[in-house]
């Protein structure tokens, strides 16, 4: 029963937090652009509006299925995340499971876009997969380093280790280079400039989203909430000591997302090949160095 409640509540909390993160993203962006930005409930309005569309275009079964994968993947991921006060399946799953689950939405998206027959979408999705390939390398290095440091892949365990040891045992303190490399990879995972190659409105007209309308688009908006939250929580779990309690936990998640969404506004986007090279050069290099240090310990 408790699990059932968690399965319902954890994604719900994730979604609500995600809405706040989206709002923050848009407000920060507006601020840097010297303007006011959207009202408080804007993310909600957008999603409700999209789901309330009266006509709807679908591109076939695969298209519909992709949405299920997309949201399903993230909802599942939320249950595996260790958050304060909820157990979910965090105990049962581990880091690797989570990483795998987090790939599902992207693959789902690829599936759906493939059925839209829009070249822009196809280019976008191939770029997205390329980008995934690019940031997964430093991320993998960072995760390997982290698991080696903590000696476990169990997320609950990782959180417990850090919380018991206090701030000195936080990943960011014990393995700073891995944390930096990991953060750069996370920035890539957010898909923000300079790594925003698969949306790229001016180049490929928002890529995967080009044919998405109404409820599909709404689903993508929800996915964005989950994405910000999930990635933020993952980083907090690995390097920032997880959540002791909700307020602190949310602050940490928000901080992770904030840095990313703030910095993104002052860069343009790299070309695809440059993203791969950059990801494999800097974050990977830093992370490898960090890994070496960890192994040397």
């Amino acid at each position, binding site marked *: 029963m408790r699990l059932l409640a968690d399965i319902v509540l954890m994604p719900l909390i994730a979604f609500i937090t995600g809405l706040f993160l989206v709002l923050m993203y848009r407000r920060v962006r507006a601020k840097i652009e010297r303007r006011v930005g959207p*009202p408080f409930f804007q993310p*909600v*309005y957008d999603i409700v509006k999209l789901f*309330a569309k*009266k006509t709807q*275009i679908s591109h076939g079964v695969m298209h519909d299925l992709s949405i299920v994968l997309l949201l399903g993947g993230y909802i599942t991921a939320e249950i595996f995340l260790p958050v304060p006060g909820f157990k979910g399946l965090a105990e049962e799953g581990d880091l690797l499971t989570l990483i795998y689950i987090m790939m599902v939405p992207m693959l789902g998206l690829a599936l759906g876009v493939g059925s839209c027959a829009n070249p822009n979408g196809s280019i976008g999705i191939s770029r997205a997969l390329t980008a995934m390939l690019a940031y997964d390398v430093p991320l993998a290095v960072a995760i390997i380093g982290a698991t080696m440091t903590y000696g476990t892949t169990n997320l609950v365990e990782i959180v417990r280790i850090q919380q018991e040891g206090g701030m000195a045992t936080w990943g960011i303190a014990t393995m700073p280079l891995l944390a930096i490399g990991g953060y750069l990879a996370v920035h890539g995972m957010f898909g923000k400039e300079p790594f925003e190659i698969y949306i790229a409105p001016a180049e490929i007209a928002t890529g995967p989203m080009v044919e998405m309308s*109404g409820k599909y*688009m709404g689903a993508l908006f929800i996915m964005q909430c989950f994405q910000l939250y999930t990635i933020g929580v993952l980083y907090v779990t690995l390097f920032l000591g997880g959540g002791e309690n909700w307020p602190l936990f949310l602050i940490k998640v928000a901080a992770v997302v904030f840095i990313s969404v703030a910095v993104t506004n002052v860069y343009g986007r790299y070309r695809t090949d440059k993203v791969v090279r950059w990801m494999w050069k800097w974050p990977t290099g830093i992370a490898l160095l960090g890994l070496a240090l960890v192994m040397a310990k």
Partner: protein
Amino acid sequence: MTDKPLKSHVRPPQDTMPGGAGQGCPAPDAQTRSIWRRIMDDFADHCRARSLFVLHYCTGCGAIELPPTITSRFDMERVGITPMVTPRQADILLITGYLSLKTLKRVILSYEQMQGPKYVLGFGSCTINGGMYWNSYATMKRLDQYIPTDLFIAGCMPRPEAVQQVLLKLIEDIDAGRANAWQDYYRNYDFYLGNQQRLFGAGWNTPTDVIGEARHYGYYGPGTEGEHTRLLAEGGGSAARLAHAEYPSTALTGRIKS
């Protein structure tokens, strides 16, 4: 311009657009809905009015005042208005002034690809009665003959504050459930198609199956089909639909989803 039907196109009597300044266009079934439906619809309208995506399509010169409107000085995101890239994602189609006939085709295509509820705003003189280019062979003269238009705004071109006001007025109309002009495209498709055919010839066709959508979504009216839509069928029906290649747009087409 070959064999264009030269009949004068009078809007059919079952007009769902009563018009009148400030009246907007209430949905025809507004009074017959259940209370629950009404609450839901009001909530949806409330959100719709506060989240409007504008199609990023610079159709004419008025587009030069859009960047200021959207950007920092007149920041329309304050009321939830953001530019969106493709017709699929967009709610508002801004017709920023004159439309050359070549663009008009793309506009109609984009409009049909947008998902309802959708709104069309006509900028400036050119969309009302030809404007500056009234004697030009290359531009259309009256926007509301080709696609249903929610609001017009005076100006050549309207300045950002004026654009702001038209958007605010649209928000007000949506909030009050009055902005339903888009349904008229389904209900009186024959009227719009006839005018389109008059410009583009009897062979004019679009990839979107408007009649099918009208049936599917329950917007089929007595004016949906008529002498002009028959030409579509005579031309071979869906088989004659134009290849996307000839009329490019960012969005393609898809099937109706229930």
